[in-house]
């Protein structure tokens, strides 16, 4: 019974661990794109101030 609990624990660990890793990868990609957007904002502001 105890040995079999180990298998149940391992399966749980992989399922929730796997889903968490994927969620973190989405969060990381989201942050990196937000940084890109901020950079675009900055360069647009510089361009606008240069035009004036």
């Amino acid at each position, binding site marked *: *019974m105890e040995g079999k609990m180990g*298998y*149940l624990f391992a399966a749980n660990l*992989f*399922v929730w661990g796997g889903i968490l890793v994927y969620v973190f990868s989405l969060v990381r990609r989201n942050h990196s*794109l937000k940084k890109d957007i901020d950079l*675009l*904002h900055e360069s647009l502001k510089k361009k606008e101030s240069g035009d004036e």
Partner: protein
Amino acid sequence: MSDAVPAENGTDESEGSGIGLLTLAGAGILAAVGAIFMYAPTEKTEGVVQRIMYFHVPCAWVAFFAFFVVFACSILFLWKKEREWDIYAHASAEIGIVFCSLVLITGPIWGKAVWGVWWVWDARLTSTLVLWLIYVAYLMLRVQSEAGSTRAKYAAVIGIVGFLDIPLIHFSVLWWRTFHPLPKFVTTSGLGSGMDTPMTITLMVSLGAFTLLYFLLMSQRVRIEKMKDDIDRIKKKRLYAH
């Protein structure tokens, strides 16, 4: 599409629906975990390890559903030539791979506990591995080749052909003698007729929670892909403007 920089990703409305989905999926997962460990009875022959089924089957369901979305969106992309369908297909394929990987991990863990071996080359297991390999190839094609309509077309063809493996996976246990047990939830006598009622309820709660999780992940993944498109478009416009 104006030349304006996208104001953060998405509108207030999409963020609101995202929070709603997050709440629903979170509540669903809590309910599923509670049902799996506190409500579902322990199976007589396999013991506690049978509870792996409540994760294994929903992961398989989400993987198959995700690949069905790839299949449907790929057909729509080839028909309508709209980038939107390619985005949905790509996002769904990635999520499908995540859940198919979890099926291929939890299955051998369950198999080792019940059959005494991690893996057997029977029809169900092998056809599931083939499905995983097809969609890994689908994602590799997207990473390795240059963005554009040609890549999207090739990916769509793989997305459609790959889905043909799913009926084979489903019927493999009926057509051939396999180690894998016959379906107990979806049977000819009706949904859940091969299981005790508390087990059927637990599995249904878990299936519902994982389906909500799929829609939550899908909404976020699609949002990321759309943000990438917007940024690329603006960068290109600015490059040509100089």
